[in-house]
């Protein structure tokens, strides 16, 4: 594993007894001593700490935020210009075919935009941003800061012990806040369906901050295994699995991420890669849709399981893109794509598992209600 990168928290993970695995070019903790199931439940009931330093943090500046946002809107089908200072929003890079190149978070930081992108896509994303925005604007990958997520109903209580001001933040607020004696960039957000924070901290203070949070009785370190089951129960897409360069935002059920101003009839309609297809799909609908799927039995059905309309038909009508056991709902859960005629809530489809076709019910997402502090 010598060519794998390590985050500033690597030694801390190993010291906590983490099982380290390769992930997106990094050696990352997949689980700690608690194990995936208990880590998952701990995050939903108390607070979990995640090292997400492998994700790409990117600063875009060189002009007032409005001008940066206008330029970034040529790459994402999202209302970036309308985002207030100190606020964050979810976004997508699209391609000319209307597919999704990555999903991301971006924030209006007043004199610049701060973007957080997926680890596996960050090199391509930075190249895409530089090609489109430079030299008028400056795109700077931030490589000297770790990124930590603190998630769960007790995240606020735990983080407020380091600086009480974080309790005043609302979902998707972004602020610079001093923690352990250093300026951290904090957003009240995450990817577990729970309330919580994502904290960008200079790498020199990353261990001190993590240790200060772990010292809280209700905070445990949580690995990638539980991160995956948490986001799956929350109905959130994992790039490269539930969404990719061949899935459109309409197929993926991410139309909420494309605000009215960028849709047909909006003041800044279109003007992003793949707008023709994507705006057409808003009108006509997509031929397939991402849906929640509940296996009727106890057997988990995972990514790649083909879906059929009934127990015998040879024609595949879709595929599972994420699936596993949901520790909070205490049953197997999945999501995937099905052709639109099978996408109504309550429809029954069949997944082929080890040569047998087993029923699944199309269900609404998320499987666990979101618990955000709006």
């Amino acid at each position, binding site marked *: 594993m010598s060519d794998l990168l390590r985050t500033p928290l690597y030694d801390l993970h190993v010291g906590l007894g983490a099982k380290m695995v390769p992930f997106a070019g990094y050696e990352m903790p*997949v*689980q700690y001593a608690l*194990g*995936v*199931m*208990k880590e998952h439940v701990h995050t939903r009931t108390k607070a979990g700490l995640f090292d997400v330093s492998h994700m790409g943090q990117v600063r875009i500046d060189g002009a007032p935020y409005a001008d940066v946002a206008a330029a970034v809107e040529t790459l994402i089908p999202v209302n970036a210009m309308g985002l207030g200072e100190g606020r964050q929003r979810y976004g997508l890079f699209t391609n000319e075919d209307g597919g999704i190149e990555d999903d991301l978070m971006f924030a209006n930081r007043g004199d610049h935009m701060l973007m957080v992108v997926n680890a596996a896509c960050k090199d391509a994303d930075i190249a895409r941003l530089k090609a489109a925005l430079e030299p008028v604007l400056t795109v700077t990958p931030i490589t000297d800061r770790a990124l930590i997520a603190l998630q769960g109903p007790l995240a606020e209580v735990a983080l407020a012990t380091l600086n009480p001001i974080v309790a005043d933040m609302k979902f998707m607020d972004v602020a610079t806040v001093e923690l352990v004696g250093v300026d951290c960039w904090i957003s009240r957000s995450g990817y577990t369906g729970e309330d919580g924070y994502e904290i960008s901290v200079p790498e020199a203070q990353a261990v001190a901050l993590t240790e200060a949070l772990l010292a809280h009785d209700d905070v445990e370190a949580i690995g990638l*295994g539980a991160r995956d*089951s948490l986001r799956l129960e929350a109905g959130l897409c994992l790039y490269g699995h539930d969404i990719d360069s061949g899935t459109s935002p309409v197929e993926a059920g991410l139309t909420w991420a494309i605000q009215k101003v960028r849709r047909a009839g909006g003041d800044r309609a279109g003007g992003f890669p793949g707008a023709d297809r994507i705006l057409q799909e808003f009108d006509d609908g997509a031929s397939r849709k991402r849906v929640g799927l509940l296996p009727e039995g*106890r*057997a*988990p059905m*995972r990514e790649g399981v083909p879906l059929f309309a009934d127990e015998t038909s040879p024609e595949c009508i879709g595929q599972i893109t994420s699936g*596993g*056991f949901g*520790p909070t709902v205490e049953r*197997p859960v999945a999501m995937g794509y099905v052709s639109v005629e099978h996408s109504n809530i309550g429809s029954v489809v069949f997944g082929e598992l*080890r040569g047998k076709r087993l029923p699944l019910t199309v269900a609404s997402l998320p499987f666990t209600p979101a618990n955000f502090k709006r």
Partner: protein
Amino acid sequence: MKFTEEHEWLKQDGDLVVVGITEHAATQLGDIVFVELPEAGTEVAKDDEVVVIESVKAASDILAPIDGEIVEVNEALGDEPAKVNDDPMEGGWFFKIKPSDPSQMDEYMDEAAYKAMVE
């Protein structure tokens, strides 16, 4: 008691052999959420895939360690798959097999040899 390189244990019970997985294997697999067992009465050959275990991470196959007839399976695992984690060497057993050739047991390790292998 005998042990396979695949981390199964085999325990003689009269003229039957009880089969499960070791503590070491259960720990490595992580939290087990589903166990698919064969039907009693199934004739199996050594190395047939007879049990599927699903943990939170992945599915794993358990192979029949010997030839014979599956005469009883641990139905309790249907509702309580976590028994395999909690009590792998006793309550988490998978099936009882009637060996067609009991001498097939001889090739497997004793406890000391198995412990040496996993250490």
